[in-house]
């Protein structure tokens, strides 16, 4: 207090300097904060640079022929076959199965939660969805292998369904993505203003007509974004397919046989002590780059849809 008083009297005697003083502490802190903000750019640059560099090395390897990569239907690093198709088709297969489960279920649950459920039911169901979303994917992998696969084998016969198959991995992946699609869709539906619904009821719409013909179209951009994010998540999903979909690339669209997806392959290859600069080592970078680009494009599309087609209500 005394110090402050002293300062004040000092200032009164001299001419008061109103110019902004430089505060070095503030500048340093601001620089540190900027660095923190910029740090994530380094992550992206790191991904692009490292994955790109090693992927380039992969394509330059003598045993890898660029044309083969996109035309050959065999991926067998030890015989020099690097066709991406078998890995690609199984990724496509698991993703399709997952989305065939997650889209209809997820939309139905979201519509139920947002349009039909009473507040009490809602407050009970939302946490259940959050729990589902918080369960680690390896647990879903265990579920696929010890529950879904035996179930499928019982239904379709043990001769038809192999122990490791893309079908059970895809189905369980659908359950994994269900809460994601539900919560994003539900957010979009809840954002549609009450007045729209009341107007529709006013001209005599039934509950279903209001939900499907008024609310859903109004929230369509959010729903589309949810579906695309779901697809991107399914493509990048790893542990379920690593546990349940089988080891070894297989060029097939039969969901009852084992086939390795891109992510499953990366995990299996890097499971052992991978030696640097081997074909296997470089190949996971090429596959990782492929995954990165595909999911990035999907995410950007989803963001663009939201920005571009969002119906804005006051």
């Amino acid at each position, binding site marked *: 207090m005394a110090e402050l008083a002293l300062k004040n009297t000092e200032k009164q005697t001299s001419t008061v300097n109103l110019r902004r003083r430089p505060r070095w502490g503030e500048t340093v802190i601001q620089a540190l904060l900027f660095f*923190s903000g910029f740090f*994530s*750019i380094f992550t992206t640059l790191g991904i692009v640079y490292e994955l790109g560099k090693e992927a380039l090395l992969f394509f330059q390897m003598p045993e890898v022929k660029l044309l083969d990569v996109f035309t050959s239907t065999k991926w067998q690093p030890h015989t020099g076959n690097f066709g991406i198709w078998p890995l690609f088709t199984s990724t496509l297969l698991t993703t399709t199965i997952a989305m065939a489960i997650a889209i209809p279920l997820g939309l139905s649950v979201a519509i139920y939660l947002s349009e039909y459920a009473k507040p009490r039911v809602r407050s009970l169901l939302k946490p259940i969805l959050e729990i589902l979303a918080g*369960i680690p994917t390896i*647990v879903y992998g265990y579920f696929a292998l010890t529950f879904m696969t035996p179930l499928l084998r019982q239904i379709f016969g043990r001769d038809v369904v192999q122990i490791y198959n893309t079908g059970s991995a895809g189905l369980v992946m659908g359950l994994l993505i*269900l809460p994601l699609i539900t919560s994003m869709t539900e957010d979009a539906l809840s954002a549609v203003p009450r007045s729209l619904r009341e107007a529709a009821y006013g001209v005599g719409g039934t509950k279903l007509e209001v939900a499907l013909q008024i609310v859903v179209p109004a929230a369509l951009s959010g729903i589309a974004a949810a579906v695309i994010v779901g697809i991107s998540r399914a493509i990048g999903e790893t542990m379920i397919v690593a546990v349940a979909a089988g080891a070894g690339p297989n060029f097939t669209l039969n969901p009852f046989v084992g086939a390795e997806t891109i992510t499953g392959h990366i995990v299996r290859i890097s499971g052992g002590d991978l030696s640097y600069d081997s074909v296997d080592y470089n190949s*996971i970078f090429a596959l990782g780059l492929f995954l990165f680009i595909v999911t990035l494009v999907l995410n950007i599309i989803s963001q663009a849809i939201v920005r571009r087609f969002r119906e804005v209500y006051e």
Partner: protein
Amino acid sequence: MKEKAVVQGFANNLEARHRRSTLWRVVFQASTIVGIFALVALMINIINGAFGYVAYEAKVDPDTLTVDGIPVQEQSQEQLVARLQSTLSSGAYKKLENEKPFAQRSREEVYQLVVERIIRPQVVEVWNLWPSLTQADKIRATVAQDHPGAELDFISWLTTDFVTRPQTSEAFTAGVRTAILGSLWTILFTILLAFPIGVGAAIYLEEYAADNWLNRIIQTNINNLAGVPSIVYGILGLAIFVRALEPLTSGEVFGLVDPTTANGRTVLSAGLTLGLLVLPIIIINAQEAIRAVPRSLRNASYGVGATKWQTVWSHVLPTAMPGILTGTILAVSRAIGETAPLVVVGASTAISFDPASPFSKFTTLPIQIYQWTSRPQDEFRSLAAASILVLLVLLLSLNASAVLLRNRFSRRF
């Protein structure tokens, strides 16, 4: 006349419309029930795997180890050590002595060793909880017929011993202590990297950043990073932390490890990799928390002459902290459950010693679950189920603390 027909048509139609409305209502409800059923099935399936009958045969009958009428369970430490010395080859005995002198081991540890190395119970067959409850008689009959020498016990694979024992290759003596400690060590470095940078970035973006192209790129980039598959982070971690920064992440530059065996596949690399993975999530959550702090609070602070940083440090951060911590806990629980990036970074397949420094090799709980699930034998599936229960309890308590934090400290403006 025409109007009447329209009205009539409308009335006729009305019933069909209401019927359709009810039908779809049932469909929506059924979907919700399917979702709940899936969660219940998931939980029951795990519990089903973690308990049940197990038939096992001992390589050496414990009764033959009785000395002076004292059964092996009650023998003193000296007797047990003597038994080990006389039964094991001198090389194997020396190796155990080198790992940790017998004098320093507790009686329990020595007894474990006797069970592990001499009695060696081998699992013959495993049953899940459901058949164990419903067909107990049939199981007993099968065991009596097929494995006359085997013992049959109803056990819980999840025990306190299971949580405190280190990892081994035998199903009966395996535990998850190594994995739990590995997870905790890893998460420590994840938090050390991601929390300060994450909160710093959120403060920058919410409080300092002007609306220009650079800051828009930073924001977009963070949103996109949140959607990158976790395995891609694993590959990045392999290239940068394990390989390029090997001298640092293996502890070589600190002179802590022998340069010839130095390896970047350490706790530190794993933690930093997961740190990069959860960074965007922490930033986005922290941004939301900071955004919820009302403008008036800042203006009041500026009004009494505080600088920007003083305002942020003394007013914005304390107010936003419960929200930031909740978001961080949720991000950390995501990191604890991550498996794929750590497999790529190079988690060890079988280590039985606890991680002791940032430069230790590591395994984590999800990795352990993955390895046990991937093994064809049923007993390891049961171990996987038991470790899933451990992991879920860990995550559930983290999430519960996040919810508590949110309810207790959050203030509405």
